[in-house]
């Protein structure tokens, strides 16, 4: 029993290793191993989900210095990790299967499946980790698998740059994360989540310290869950194959940041100022990303900005809700409907022969009816249509936010309207109107291996918010003192978003609205590339020049004079004959060298 979590954790790693060595010889072997291991892990996770929490767990000491420092490797099996295990493994199995169809004609087949299996291993490590260092280890490893998978088409400059950017931006977040871990550890002497929770109360007399530590730990989330100002890597990560965008950059990996916050929820709620910071970051991200999404033309980038926006909701939920189950509930429903939306987008992209610009699509409703239906279900869930999953989980977060942080709460209400608008803009432009390109005229529905995962995801995307599902996975309490006007306003905004999108985009051949500020992502990317080019690289160049022409000269010229002076003095020191011996040894060596080189 207690070995099951370890089997769950290491099966995908074993699959990745075998694929690394043998995958190049056989495509079915690569895919079979990856899917087989994911499915096995999925079954075990569901089984684990039905079991009561184990009382004892196995824990190793990875590094042990006794009292000074103990770094354990151990697993936590509780309600939170069990739910997350189920979500991650179920979606992974479906996306792995879908990949067989999507990647059929692509190169680097084994590399792709080895990367996916490595990702699954790393993600499960984050889910199961019972302490900060173990989580950090797997945190970095999901960064690596993301790097490998974004860079799958490494011959394309844009993909190579996006992979690099994703890794580096995540490391910037990890800089703060690690520093926060060090601060928490220095204060409490432990790294284990359950022990930390108990000891934080003792530190209540040091609110500044604890606040700084928690905000720094939150930097990890800002990087991994693409919150502002470190969100720039996520839209660029769409350079990876679409199933990767679906699994890593929408459903699971980017949610790891929210999962981490849920894991340390009791600690965070002892530090009100840190919660305020988290709420503002989440709220602003949620709104700004939605603004950017309204003016994107690439089908995957629209979805990417909507992912950032939804992650913003979850982060805001962490700060405003009374229980970690609230943001986790949205993470749960979002995982299904966002994964579904991306897989639908992948189906469209395959049907369109790898065209991603929505203004070259159009009228795909009849060509790809099944994809269209699935995508409408996903869109209704995303935009918070009543009776679809997103409606329940998102409105819950908005309710809590409006009560605790009125400004941010109402900002997130506006965002809900924007969400409906940009989501249905996508639907209307891609599936209605006239075909705008030859590919759109000849598009065909995708193969069954891709459609079955769509069907499997459409069901939870629809119903995952219903009471019976919610009770199975979560214990959510409704927020109190919510203004009665809130829900009617949300409904009106949803309708307004859909209708305005319908009016504007139903038969538009090109975008009738042009807001360069939104289309250019609020110019944040431009600002960053300016900083990297001018400050980082320019500064580095100046330093490099100084190193060669100033430091080098100073340190070479001065000591070479000094060396002669010392040598001169040395001859007059009569301590014994050792120094003289060594000096002559050195001089002889230099002489020999001179002779050999200059001859």
């Amino acid at each position, binding site marked *: 029993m207690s070995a099951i979590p370890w089997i769950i954790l290491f099966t995908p790693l074993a699959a990745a290793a075998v694929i690394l060595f043998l995958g190049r010889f056989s495509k079915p072997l690569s895919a079979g191993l990856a899917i087989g291991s994911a499915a096995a892990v999925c079954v075990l996770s569901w089984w684990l989900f039905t079991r009561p929490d184990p009382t004892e767990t196995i824990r190793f*000491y990875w*590094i*042990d*210095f006794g009292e*000074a*420092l103990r770094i354990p490797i151990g697993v936590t099996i509780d309600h939170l990790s069990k739910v997350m295990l189920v979500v991650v493994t179920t979606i992974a199995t479906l996306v792995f299967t879908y990949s067989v169809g999507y990647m059929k004609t692509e190169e680097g087949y084994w590399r792709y499946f080895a990367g996916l299996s490595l990702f699954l291993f790393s993600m499960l490590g984050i889910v199961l980790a019972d302490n900060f260092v173990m989580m950090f*280890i797997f945190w*970095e*490893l999901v960064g*690596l698998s993301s*790097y490998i998978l974004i*860079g799958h088409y*490494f*011959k394309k*400059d844009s993909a*190579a*740059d996006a*992979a*690099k950017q994703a*890794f*580096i931006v995540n*490391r*910037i977040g990890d*800089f703060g994360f*690690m*520093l926060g871990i*060090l601060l928490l550890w*220095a*204060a409490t002497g432990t790294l284990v989540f359950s022990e930390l929770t108990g000891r934080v109360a003792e530190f209540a007399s*040091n609110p500044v*310290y604890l606040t700084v530590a928690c905000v720094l730990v939150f930097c990890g989330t800002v990087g991994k869950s693409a919150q502002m100002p470190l969100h720039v890597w996520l839209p660029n990560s769409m350079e990876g194959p679409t199933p990767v965008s679906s699994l890593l950059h929408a459903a699971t990996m980017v949610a790891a940041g929210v999962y981490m916050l849920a894991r340390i929820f009791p600690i965070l709620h002892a530090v009100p100022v840190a919660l305020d910071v988290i709420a503002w970051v989440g709220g602003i991200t949620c709104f700004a990303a939605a603004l950017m999404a309204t003016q994107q033309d690439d089908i995957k980038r629209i979805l990417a900005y909507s992912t950032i926006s939804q992650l913003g909701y979850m982060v805001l939920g962490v700060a405003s809700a009374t229980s970690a189950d609230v943001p986790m509930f949205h993470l749960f429903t979002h995982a299904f409907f966002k994964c579904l939306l991306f897989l639908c987008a992948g189906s469209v992209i395959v049907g369109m022969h790898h065209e991603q610009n929505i203004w070259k699509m159009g009228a795909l409703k009849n060509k790809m009816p099944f994809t269209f239906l699935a995508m409408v279900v996903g869109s209704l869930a995303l935009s918070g249509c009543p009776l679809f999953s997103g409606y329940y989980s998102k409105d819950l977060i908005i309710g809590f936010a409006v009560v605790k942080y009125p400004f941010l709460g109402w900002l997130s209400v506006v965002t809900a309207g924007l969400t409906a608008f940009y989501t249905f803009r996508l639907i209307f432009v891609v599936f209605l109107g006239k075909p705008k390109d030859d590919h759109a005229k000849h598009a065909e529905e995708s193969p069954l291996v891709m459609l079955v995962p769509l069907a499997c995801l459409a069901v939870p995307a629809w119903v995952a918010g219903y009471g019976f599902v919610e009770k199975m996975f979560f214990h959510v309490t409704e927020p109190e003192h919510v203004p009665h006007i809130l829900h009617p306003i949300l409904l009106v905004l949803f309708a307004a978003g859909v209708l305005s999108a319908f009016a504007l985009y139903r038969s538009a051949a090109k975008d009738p609205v042009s807001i360069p500020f939104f289309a250019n992502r609020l110019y944040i990317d431009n600002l960053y590339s300016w900083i990297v080019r001018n400050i*980082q*690289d320019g*500064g*580095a*160049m100046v*330093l*490099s020049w100084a*190193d*060669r022409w100033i*430091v080098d000269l100073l*340190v*070479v010229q001065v*000591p*070479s004079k*000094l*060396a002669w002076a010392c040598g001169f003095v040395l001859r007059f020191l009569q301590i*014994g004959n*050792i*120094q003289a011996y*060594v000096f002559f*040894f*050195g001089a002889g*060596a*230099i002489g*020999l*060298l001179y002779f*050999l*080189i*200059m001859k």
Partner: protein
Amino acid sequence: MSPLLFLILVPLVAAAFIMVGSNARLTALVGSATNLAFVLILVAFYRQGNGQPYQFVSSLPVIPSMGISLTLGADGLSLLMLLLASLVTVAAVAVAKTPEKNPHLFYASLMFISAGGLGAFASINLFFFYMFHELALIPTFLLIGIWGSGDRQAAAWKATIYLALGSFVLLLGLIGLYLIQPDGMRTFDLPAIIGMADAGLLPEGNWIYLLLLVGFGILVSLFPFHTWAPQAYASAPAPAAMLHAGVLKKFGLYGLIRIAAPIFPDAVVQFSNLLLVMLVGNILYVGYVTISQRKLDWMLGYSSVMHMGYIFLGFAALNPVSLTGASLMLFAHGISIAALFALCGEIRERTGTLDFAELGGLAKPMPAFGLLFGFAAMAAIGLPGFVGFAGEILVFFGSFVAGEPLMGVTAGGKELFQFNNYQIATICALWGVVISAVYMLRAYRRVFFGPLNDRWSGLGEISGPARIAIAVLIVVMLVTGFFPGLLVKLIESSAL
């Protein structure tokens, strides 16, 4: 015969055979492989916690009146360094391309470097500790000066001047260490000197510590004495760069951990601010210089200088956690930089250039090569799973709690929140992790990713001994990275 003496003699005998005309490459390979196997046996036979810090001890008096004797002995830390030295030697010989010009001297030089490195790490008499290192430096200069590339003579001369100067300052420090001992007890025997220091028989030795720090510092390319290193590594043939950056350069830090830490702990604390400034120079200043490099070999040379900063931080913090971290990083960095220089040499061999602007897309014609380079690059930037991560994290944890705490303390009802200098240095070092990701991933992207230049479409895949040797280095880093406890346990006994 003492097992450690055997270890030193094997490469010397191999060198002798090579010089009299046996098959140079084969002899060197057999000699270094024998040594590696032998070190592994020694590690297996090393018994922890039997009260003897040094085992396999043998002593051969040379000048007994001055306390000079060829005393060899190994504890956990020396065994780790011996393992590093013998492993990197095998890899260096395996990837070496037999030159047309005087191949016998080439391989004999490699063997001499190996013997010198092994001798230095196995010596517990400071005189021989120093002499063995000198023995290894001379063939290094020869390798750069004769078989190097680019402006090899300038590089060789610069390295010679720097390293000779470093050795000279170090020598002054060691002589000083000899002279401050009480009259009649003077010796070069390290355990005896440490015994005296523990017994309070040594006077304050600030100047000696500074001489040791600068002397060893120059040898390890401590900022601002680092400018010799990138140029020398860029010019050196791959095996020489591997052996120097991977093994010999570790001598300086090993010396500081071995000599300065136990004998002058007070001086280390007293001058900690000076050292912290210099090591932050290594990490941040050299880190940014690394970012702007336009050639792979220079980039790797600077990155190796930068990484020394972390190890210095582990030394400066002077607690068991940080010193263990520093030791692990010595091992980790030695292997990863050796693998990277080996691969860099292979690229130079194939393309004749290491300029980022000319390379690109090489993962297409050489996928296995790209994979190996990727592993080595990720190991170098401290990715979890590789031993470098364990070393880095121990250094961070150790140094973050060094010094007087200035935060989390409530004084007079008010909360203090201020970082001490060790913590500021740790934060800089943490930022270094971001910097190293920037330069390493950029280099990888420019060399292996992107569109392929037609010039390189016919490049041959890495194969044969080089492929096996680098794969072995990577496997060693992975195994010790998954189970760093093995190494921590090994060096636990070294009284860090």
